[in-house]
């Protein structure tokens, strides 16, 4: 099976990428979408990993750093290609296909831009099946594939090739991203198409295209199921003490208290660290990462960013079940509550 993502498919692709995306800022997303639109004329080929020659060298492409920085320091346009070319130089062989690290908002568009610029196919799948804040929180890592060597391309044309052992990438990456201007395109996880097929969460791009169509319902975007935790009103947004986590996470912990508006009228607490990592109802654990917990505004159906939650907002709290690999012992260690400093 192969199909193309062109101008006609782009709106659905963009809409689908935002169904569960938290942390998206409007201006940076519009900018990235315009960027993608300018390149999508001839379309990008979407292939399943299994359709590629097994030895094809593939790389994951993603945005690193702050979305706000992206909207302030505009891209030059050659960053995605620059990152992949730099990786190719380090590898000594060409990259034959790109894959998304995750498919949330800009992170879905940047690999598409990379594929269009380099004229290589985009693989129908991604490295998380959802979003995690750290570059190494991926199913690729779970499959034993290293994020390094990793290439970075900043907006001012600077290129960095980083090679290190697993577990060190995040720590080295963060100051580098800051040094090149706050955001950069990263090309990482070089791997064969054969390895990618076994490590990725497959079919997520097709699903996203499907779910992004106006007539589709939100659950169609979800491969492993979702449920509504509660509907309620935000009572309070509180700071939360910093926790001891391995590579420290990019933002401060916070806590959102939602009072259920119907039924048992439970007190639901959403503990957030970049994203919501734990949900308690009357003190009982009702959902944790690696499943994805998000607030959806009941007013307009948009995902409510943790940083934008304010008391009085009416929200629906939904839980999207993560890929089964995340629920393995190794998956929980990398993406479960403990990875966010929560000892339950």
């Amino acid at each position, binding site marked *: 099976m192969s199909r193309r993502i062109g101008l006609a498919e782009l709106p659905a692709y963009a809409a689908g990428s935002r169904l569960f995306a938290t942390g998206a800022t409007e201006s940076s997303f519009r900018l990235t979408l315009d960027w993608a639109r300018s390149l999508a004329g001839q379309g990008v080929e979407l292939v399943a990993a299994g359709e590629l020659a097994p030895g094809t060298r593939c790389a994951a492409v993603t945005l690193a750093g702050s979305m706000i920085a992206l909207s302030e320091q505009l891209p030059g346009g050659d960053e995605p290609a620059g990152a992949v070319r730099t990786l190719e130089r380090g590898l000594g062989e060409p990259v034959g296909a790109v894959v998304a690290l995750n498919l949330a908002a800009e992170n879905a568009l940047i690999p598409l831009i990379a594929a269009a610029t380099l004229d290589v196919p985009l693989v129908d799948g991604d490295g998380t099946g959802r979003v995690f804040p750290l570059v190494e929180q991926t199913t690729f890592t779970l499959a034993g594939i290293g994020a390094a060597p990793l290439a970075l391309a900043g907006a001012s044309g600077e290129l960095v090739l980083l090679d290190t052992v697993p577990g060190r990438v995040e720590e080295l990456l963060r100051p580098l991203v800051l040094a090149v201007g706050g955001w950069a395109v990263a090309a990482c996880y070089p791997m064969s198409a054969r390895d990618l097929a076994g490590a990725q969460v497959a079919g997520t791009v097709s699903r996203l295209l499907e779910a992004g169509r106006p007539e589709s319902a939100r659950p169609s975007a979800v491969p492993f199921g979702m449920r509504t935790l509660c509907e309620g009103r935000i*009572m*309070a947004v*509180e700071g*939360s*003490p910093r*926790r001891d986590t391995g590579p420290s996470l990019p933002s401060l*912990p916070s*806590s959102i*208290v939602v*009072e259920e508006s119907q039924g048992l009228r*439970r*007190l639901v*607490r959403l*503990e957030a660290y970049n994203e919501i990592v*734990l949900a*308690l109802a*009357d*003190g*009982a*654990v009702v959902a944790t990462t690696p499943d994805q917990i998000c607030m959806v505004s009941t007013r307009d159906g948009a995902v409510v960013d943790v940083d934008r939650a304010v008391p009085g907002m009416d929200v629906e709290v939904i839980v999207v079940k993560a890929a089964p690999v995340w629920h393995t012992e190794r998956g929980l260690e990398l993406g479960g509550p403990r990875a966010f400093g*929560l*000892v*339950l």
Partner: protein
Amino acid sequence: MSAPKAGWEAPVTVAELVTAGPLAGALMYGTGEKPVHEVRIVDEPSAFGTVAPHTAVVLVGAAASGGWAVEMAMRRAWEQAAACVIAPSSGLSPASGAVLAERLGVTLIFVDDPLVTAVRVASAAARPEAARMQLVARAATRLAEAGPSARAVLGVLNAELQGASVTFLDRYGRHLAGRRLPDREPPEGGGGRPAGPAALAEVEVPDQEGGLLGRLVAHGSLRSPGWPPVVRTVLGLAVAPLAAWSATARLAASRDFTLQEALAVRLIERRPPREEGASGEQESAAARAAALGWPVRGPLTAYLVRPWGRRAGPEEGLAAQAVIAATVGRVPVTRRGEGWAGWSALPPDDLAERLRECVEALPWPSAAGIGTTVESLEAMEDSLLGAEAAAIVAERGAVARADRMGPAELLGALPAGVLRAPAGVILQPLLAIDKDGTLLETLTAVLDEGGALKAAERLGVHRNTVTTRLERIKAVGFDLDDAATRLAIQLACHVILH
């Protein structure tokens, strides 16, 4: 130490810890009604699996790292039937803590230093009797420092027995010091019970003579079976200082007759009705009257003792007061008119008997009067007026009662000795011609009986005899048709004849 009293060994409850124990002053959400048997320091959620029921769970470390951790702990505490959760005050916003405490029925307490708290609570839970004793000891120390002042003593009681409201009532149930009880509805219909809450503890305060000075009453929620005995004990500690306060007040007042007088006058001042609560001055007067042992609630009867035939000297008050106190009892004594007045709660017959003893015991000739019995101090002025009138008509060494006073008593009260001389002058023309006294006798009979016919019947003579005698009386210059003359002559006749 002797065997502990019943209830002292009952496990302490969470509320008791917070309001009067090692958690005093901590922020508490929930009822705190559960007993605490032990304390467990929990530093991570997995430790909850082994928390026993009735445990006070003290959260530290990861188990207190933010609202989520505290909320999870409350949930686990609920599942394990723990007594309460004690968290550092930085752990959770009070709002969600309060909501969850109510939803789960788990008491949540915020403290500044959980570890120090844990040690204190553990000691209180392990030896409830010792913890309660500690409170009693502290109260005793502070009561000793407060000294003999009802206000200071009640201040200590209310500060130490946090969560309880302690009131000092006089023997009539009126507020003297301490916190006021919420107004109780009077019982409705027959057999209705008072609407107010039952007292936690009540202790009687005796006066020096063994009578009842007042009652200490503590109200509040029943926190544990061990709480009322503790409250009762602490109230008991206050009895001696209050008795001393009463004795001191009595001593001071008996030294100062003027002070007592002023107090008595203040008590019977006409006050605006139904304004007791607003009048702090009246209230303190009532409190001091209670300390002096004076009756302030009806039925009350006024009395007045006066020296016979002269006004009371200014320096005689103390002596009179001493004799009145010795015979009538502890009653107010104030200077009034020609003597000393006050009131008593004794029935009029008993009061009359005591006053007779008093009049006999006084070192100078005296008489006494008793007013009508009234229901309250507000009406005391009327009773005092009656007592004054009765004392005036009372004969030397006697006690007259206003409720038994008639015209005869009034006439009897006329100072016959003083009036005899002027009466003789007025009647001189008549006496000059009245050799055997028949004219005076006839004149008196006519004036007393109001006419010649009845006078003739009284004297046993013919009507014409009376008429003839009247002609002779008029002939010497008495105009019986003039009312003033008639009254003067009648008085003169009365004085001369009796």
